[in-house]
């Protein structure tokens, strides 16, 4: 057999094996997206404008239709997407190299002008972007050439790339298209550079997206994506059971076993980036200014029982309010043990015999929030602290929180989307910040130093120091990290659950 013939045979065999492999291997596309994927989540979008988005329900639409400069991987590291690299020119100037060959859904090329336009639009007060405050320190966005951009910040910002990865506020918008057509037409028929194109949105009913075969990273696997807002848990799960939807988000812990028992469906669970804890108002004069009282309250809570009995195992005890996803997490800290005797002793030492405190909790905002709060209130009573228990409407409660009017204790959850300790410590332990009820000048200096320091090692050391002090000072009652559950049909391939409640559908396939 001639060499040419041999080579021809080899190529034929190789192609045959390749096609058989592709055919039987989900997740490897032969080019044409196939099938329909239906996802049920609890809430709908409020608009089609990423800059105005507020909730993960909205970010999931942004993730499908748009791209950002960076995205977080499942461990919380920023990975370049529309940016390919960056370098720090000086303490306050970052240069980004952008990806070439990326096209918007209408065929316009993506360039640095689009990034500049997007950032400036967020910063424009007329946009009323809810997350504008997170980017306010960007003083200038300089267009260098089509694929090079510089950003100048007021002070050094070590988490600039994380800010672009967090949330979907900075989804890159098509500057040329918006300038030519105007905002309104864009918001009726939005285009992005993401793996899916906009097809239809019926408010509170469905959002329909179609595969964008010209996606820069290759065509997505699914042809049509339908995202449906189904607020009621039982309905979402019934739809999953009957095949009406393929993925249902937020399966509450008490329904996990029911979903597990359904044929053709599996539950995918993941530790959440959200941590739950209790506020203690240490700014108001009174017993909560005494460290011993705060520590006593931490010792008084039986976190293990709460997780096992109320959350049915869906949680992990926390030492402070930072998860292992976050840069600056200190694994050496162990949660406060349950020790009611020690709690009583500390309270006695502090001289508070008939302590009476107000305990505020939202109801229905977080998984089993009221039930957990009731249990904790009972535990406080056991160590001799009388509780005046108040169930609060969410809007009313939040307003009290940010206007510093919280009385004594409040149950709260915090999802730090920057995946960096700064997003927790700055917000909770600097008195002037919106959610803080704590003041400690030394800790404030450390937090500020870490916030504006580009030296990663130095920041890590500072956060370790802050974490130890936070644990010791107990400005909060630390509780647990939530575990999220997703119901996923076995027909769905390559779906990855994430701790930030977002989903990315680019590599997801569906067998029909």
């Amino acid at each position: 057999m001639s060499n040419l013939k041999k080579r021809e045979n080899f190529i034929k065999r190789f192609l045959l094996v390749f096609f058989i492999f592709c055919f039987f291997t989900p997740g490897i596309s032969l080019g044409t997206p196939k099938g329909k994927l239906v996802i049920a989540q609890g809430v709908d979008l409020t608009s089609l404008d990423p800059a105005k988005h507020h909730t993960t329900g909205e970010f999931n639409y942004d993730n499908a239709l748009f791209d950002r400069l960076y995205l977080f991987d499942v461990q919380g590291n920023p990975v370049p997407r529309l940016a390919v690299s960056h370098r720090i020119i000086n303490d306050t100037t970052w240069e980004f190299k952008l990806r070439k060959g990326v096209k918007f859904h209408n065929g316009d090329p993506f360039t640095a002008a689009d990034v500049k336009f997007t950032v400036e639009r967020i910063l424009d007060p007329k946009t009323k972007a809810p997350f504008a405050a997170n980017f306010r320190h960007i003083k200038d966005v300089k267009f260098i050439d089509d694929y090079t951009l510089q950003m100048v910040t007021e002070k050094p910002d070590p988490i600039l790339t994380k800010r672009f990865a967090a949330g979907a506020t900075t989804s890159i918008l098509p500057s040329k298209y918006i300038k030519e057509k105007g905002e309104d037409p864009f918001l009726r028929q939005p285009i992005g550079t993401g793996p899916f194109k906009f097809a239809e949105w019926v408010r509170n009913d469905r959002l329909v997206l179609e595969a964008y075969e010209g996606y820069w990273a290759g065509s997505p696997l699914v042809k049509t994506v339908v995202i449906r807002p189904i607020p009621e848990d039982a309905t979402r799960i019934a739809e999953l059971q009957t095949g009406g939807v393929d993925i249902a988000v937020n399966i509450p812990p008490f329904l996990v076993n029911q979903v597990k028992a359904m044929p053709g469906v599996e539950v995918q669970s993941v530790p959440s980036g959200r941590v739950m804890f209790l506020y203690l108002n240490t700014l108001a004069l009174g017993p909560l200014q005494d460290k011993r009282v705060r520590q006593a309250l931490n010792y008084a809570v039986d976190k293990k029982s709460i997780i096992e009995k109320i959350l049915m195992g869906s949680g992990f005890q926390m030492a402070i309010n930072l998860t292992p996803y976050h840069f600056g997490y200190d694994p050496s800290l162990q949660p406060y043990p349950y020790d009611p005797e020690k709690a009583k002793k500390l309270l006695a030492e502090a001289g508070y015999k008939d302590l009476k405190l107000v305990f505020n909790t939202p109801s229905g905002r977080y998984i089993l929030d009221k039930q957990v709060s009731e249990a904790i209130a009972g535990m406080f009573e056991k160590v001799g602290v009388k509780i005046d228990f108040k169930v609060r409407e969410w809007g009313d409660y939040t307003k009290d929180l940010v206007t510093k009017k919280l009385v004594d204790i409040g149950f709260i959850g915090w999802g730090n989307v920057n995946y960096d300790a700064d997003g927790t410590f700055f917000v909770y332990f600097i008195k002037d910040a919106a959610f803080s009820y704590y003041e400690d000048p030394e800790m404030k200096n450390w937090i500020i130093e870490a916030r504006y320091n580009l030296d990663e090692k130095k920041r890590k050391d500072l956060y370790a120091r802050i974490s130890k002090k936070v644990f010791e000072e107990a400005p909060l009652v630390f509780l647990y990290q939530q575990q999220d559950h997703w119901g996923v049909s076995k027909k769905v391939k390559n779906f990855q659950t994430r701790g930030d409640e977002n989903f990315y559908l680019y590599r997801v396939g569906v067998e029909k």
Partner: protein
Amino acid sequence: MGGYLLRRLYHSFIVIFGITLIIFIIAHMIGDPVVLLLSPEATQADRDELQRQLGLDRSLPVQYMVFLKDAVRGHFGISFRHQRPALELVFQHLPATLELTLAAMVLSILISIPLGILASMKPGSLLDRTGMTFALFGQSAPVFWIGIMFILLFGVKLRWFPISGRGGIENLIMPAMTLALFSTAAQTRLTRSSMMDVLDKDFIRTARSKGLHEFKVILKHGLKNALIPIITIVALQFGMMLSGAVITETIFAWPGVGRLAVNAIYNRDYPVIQAAVFVTSLFFIFINLIVDLLYTKIDPRITYR
């Protein structure tokens, strides 16, 4: 009659004015939206700026005057959350609510009136007792429980109907049944008692003694005279369904005004709250007017001057 209509329209105008004032005050009493619209990193200056942009920094009477001035021209402001005109949002959701409410109303009339009549014809019979037990059940069972039971039975077990969302007639059946149950129960009881009242009257005995067919006695002489309270409650129930379908809409993920309004309340989205309440109030007033006019058609003794 013309004078009466004009008077009613004038009264309706006063009622609408009163409603705008009440919704305005209540909406502003439930709290400030600004906190819920900004990120945790926002400063007091950011909050003040947004408050200024939304016009919430002005005094309440000034805000009310601005609201009235715009409302007269059909503008209820731009939704804080959705960034679209509030009235446009309400109109987008209105067809779904009307579809559901009308379907539920038709369903409940078709069931309750025949059932009430049959029960009234033989009080104490098996049919009467069954009908009344059903009515008791319908009035006492909570809507959210009924809805979920329907989903589990007809959606999951029997797979007869789609579970949620708006679509064809098959999507409408379960939410309409759920919404209809309470009013069906109330209307059945009322039809029964109203019919029993009438069937005792002399003119019924006369009709029967004339040898009229029982069917004619019941429908022509009985039902026609029993209809006034029935129509009144049907109209009231219709109004309640329009504004109170929120639980049904939530369970079945139905994209109606109720869900829009409740989310608006949670988010302190004043323009949407005001537009939604305004539109449903208009419907309520309109239905009441129609019912009052219907009275004259049913009972010639009733005249309006």
